[in-house]
């Protein structure tokens, strides 16, 4: 039987639930010559800020067991280049969902960037990354306080008239459900979880942190059970759709995330190990569905 991989995300039809996660697939364009992008359910673009940023000094990458740390630090050409150059170029060659990932260091910056993204015709979903430090709030990330998270959500919700807004949550919190509910109540159309865990490695020979930035965001296969637990908790506590993310490496992981409650599933660090991870996972889905007697992926969402 033909397997139905499609899912519906805030009235958007995705041909399948697999979406490369922000920051792990550039602006899509970097990989356009390497694969048929149109097999992808969606693409979450590299995080963009108001101004262009070089990001952190190198080394920005460190390794760990079953995972990696990154401290790229939001290198990006700025929101104007995103909406005027990157998205139009990608839209020309890609027909699936384009997700703009927006970061900011103040509520005002989120507002401005999201308004510009909302006005950009090529963008289908706005994903607001609230893991950045809040420069006006003492440096603690917006995503670690329910109040700050709600404030960002309400602010961007106000300026986004055309597009669904997903808030991307940080896992570095005591109570993910509290933050998720605060975002839902403040008007979020959906949630993406999770972002990276704050981690660190030391180069014991040089007696220095491996990363120039000392700490970095830890992700990859290693974090899957924690991410899955958070998706499960949030999907059962909230009524808006969840994009599950964190440690997904295979079609089986996609199915597991969806059973836990995810409507779509993002693949992050695995793309760095294997640039063809997303198309390969999509290719494996039908046979995994066959084995598990699943005809349509829609029907398994949140069934556990």
């Amino acid at each position, binding site marked *: 039987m033909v397997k139905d991989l499609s899912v519906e995300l805030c009235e958007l039809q995705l041909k399948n639930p697999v979406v490369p996660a922000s920051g792990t697939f550039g602006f899509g364009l970097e990989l356009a010559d390497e694969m048929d992008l149109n097999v992808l359910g969606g693409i979450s673009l590299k995080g963009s800020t108001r101004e262009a940023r070089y990001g952190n000094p190198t080394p920005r990458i460190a390794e760990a067991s079953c995972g990696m740390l990154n401290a790229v630090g939001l290198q990006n050409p700025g929101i104007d280049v995103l909406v005027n150059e990157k998205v139009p170029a990608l839209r020309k060659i890609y027909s699936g969902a384009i997700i703009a990932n927006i970061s900011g260091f103040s509520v005002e910056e989120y507002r401005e960037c999201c308004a510009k993204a909302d006005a950009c015709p090529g963008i289908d979903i706005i994903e607001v990354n609230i893991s950045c430090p809040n420069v006006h709030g003492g440096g603690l990330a917006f995503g670690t306080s329910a109040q700050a998270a709600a404030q960002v959500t309400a602010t961007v919700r106000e300026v986004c008239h055309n597009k669904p807004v997903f808030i991307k949550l940080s896992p570095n919190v005591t109570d993910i459900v509290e933050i998720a509910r605060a975002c839902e109540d403040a008007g979020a159309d959906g949630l993406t979880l999770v972002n990276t865990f704050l981690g660190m490695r030391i180069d014991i020979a040089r007696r220095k942190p491996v990363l120039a930035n000392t700490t970095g965001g830890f992700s990859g296969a290693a974090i899957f059970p924690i991410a899955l637990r958070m998706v499960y908790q949030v999907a059962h506590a909230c009524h808006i759709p969840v994009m599950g993310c964190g440690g997904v490496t295979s079609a089986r992981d996609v199915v597991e995330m969806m059973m836990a409650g995810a409507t779509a599933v993002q693949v992050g660090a695995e*793309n*760095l190990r294997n640039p063809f991870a997303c198309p390969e996972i999509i290719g494996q889905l039908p046979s995994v569905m066959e084995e598990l007697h699943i005809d349509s992926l829609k029907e398994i969402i949140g069934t556990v």
Partner: protein
Amino acid sequence: MKKQNYTIAQNRLVAADTYKLVLSGPGPVNGEFVHLDIPGYYLRRPFSVCDSCEGSLTLLYKTVGEGTKALAKLPEGTSLSVLTGLGKGFDAKACKAGALLVGGGLGAAPLYLLAKELKAQGKRVTAVMGFNKADEIVLREEFEALCDTFALATLDGSVGTKGFVTDALKALQLEYDYFYTCGPMVMMKAVCGLLEGPGEASLEERMGCGAGFCYGCSLQTTQGPRRVCKDGPVFKMEDLIW
């Protein structure tokens, strides 16, 4: 970029802590370096293409950390996933008639492939290579057979000029219109400080994807931020901020 499996045909100690890895599989490969998946390690490892022909790919690597130590233990016949076709390499065409190649340690590896290309284009090639000690020297016969002039420097003076590769450069009558360098950053900085340009240098940086889309390897250049894996690893001397 291609992701393909190669089989270890040879994995042999050829100098102190230095192995020659011959992989059989699709070849010759494009690109300056390959990104190798060492079983049990999360990230791939980048290694310069030292040589490649029909059905084979040769790398030289030093056992410096856990991944390369694990690699050194893999027996012949092991299958490895390799990304090929990565990186912007040396521009052999930039040299008009005479090239100067300056290497330090395993920086010699990509310069060997370059030397072959330059000779195939009928250019004069001078190669100067520096190593810490005699037992670390690699590719000596290969360079000697290929190059018009070849000189060595060792830190302990056991072979060739005693000192840095720059000391060997100073001791030579150099005739070139373009230079190419690859080796430790301090060495390349000294080389670029000493030599008249134009020239280019091949850099190293910790990599994520190795293929230009994670922005893990960004370098500030005079042209703005550039990805070592995609916009490099070879950069024009004048673009580099040391």
